[in-house]
């Protein structure tokens, strides 16, 4: 088994695992962090598929901006719970 194939298999496994963890966790903060991890792994997957354009967009928008938006939403939810 070549090193590239082994890496791809590990990457595919990690993708499925992080996707499962994102959905299965009851802790919202953990879910958001897992989602960001999933986005970064997805970036690697696009790079492995020889699609660097999509990898760049995924890293910047999928992992970075969406992660920031989700974290901000989480903070707003917590403040709303604390307020009343």
């Amino acid at each position, binding site marked *: 088994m070549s090193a590239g194939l082994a890496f791809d298999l590990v990457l595919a496994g990690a993708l499925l695992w992080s996707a499962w963890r994102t959905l299965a966790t009851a802790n919202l903060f953990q879910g958001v962090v897992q989602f960001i991890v999933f986005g970064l792994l997805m970036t690697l997957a696009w790079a492995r598929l020889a699609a660097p354009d999509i990898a760049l967009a995924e890293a910047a928008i999928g992992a970075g901006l969406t992660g920031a938006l989700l974290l*901000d939403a989480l903070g707003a939810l917590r*403040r709303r719970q604390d307020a009343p």
Partner: protein
Amino acid sequence: MKRALVVLAAGLLAVLLIAAMLQLPAPAVDLPAAVGARLGESGVVHPVTAVLLNFRGYDTLLEIAVLLLALLGVLAAGGRETAAGGARAAPAALRMLARLAVPLMTVVAVYLLWAGALRPGGAFQAGAVLAAAAVLLHLVGLLPAWRSPAVPLRLALIAGFLVFLAVAAALLASGALLQYPPARAGALILLIEAALSVSLGLLLAGLLLFVSRGGVGGR
């Protein structure tokens, strides 16, 4: 038992999806070859940029319009009460790091914009990096949340769409929408991409900055 059924059903769906993917017919038109054959007329060297900004420029024009609409929706649904969020200042080290990182991110954005003609990069990636820089500044408390856009910000938000639309309108005389003359295609694409980068950066940052209550820095 229920869990096993769910796993079984999900596994079955995965197998069906993989089987469907493996049976996809070969595309009738060999698009990569078609793009490669006309690449010389597009004004850029990188095929992805050529498709996004030249051969299928119409799609990109609509994309920026959709993003603009999304931000308008955010603004229309705004009016969030100005609650007194926890006024917690970000640590000094974090502020320092942000101050160091943002100029570098701006340079990277300009590089991505310029590199788009030759290699992976382009307006969307550059805009996303610019937006990330603005969000970073906001999260450490150096950039306050935007309450309502003033005139310069409004103009910058729609600049990308307007420039794109103006170029499309100016070229209508040639017969087809967004059909650049090959001699000036490169310059036109760079002009559109530069305007798009600024607008996209502000649009994407606006999605967070218009609704945020102040991030870590608070008010």
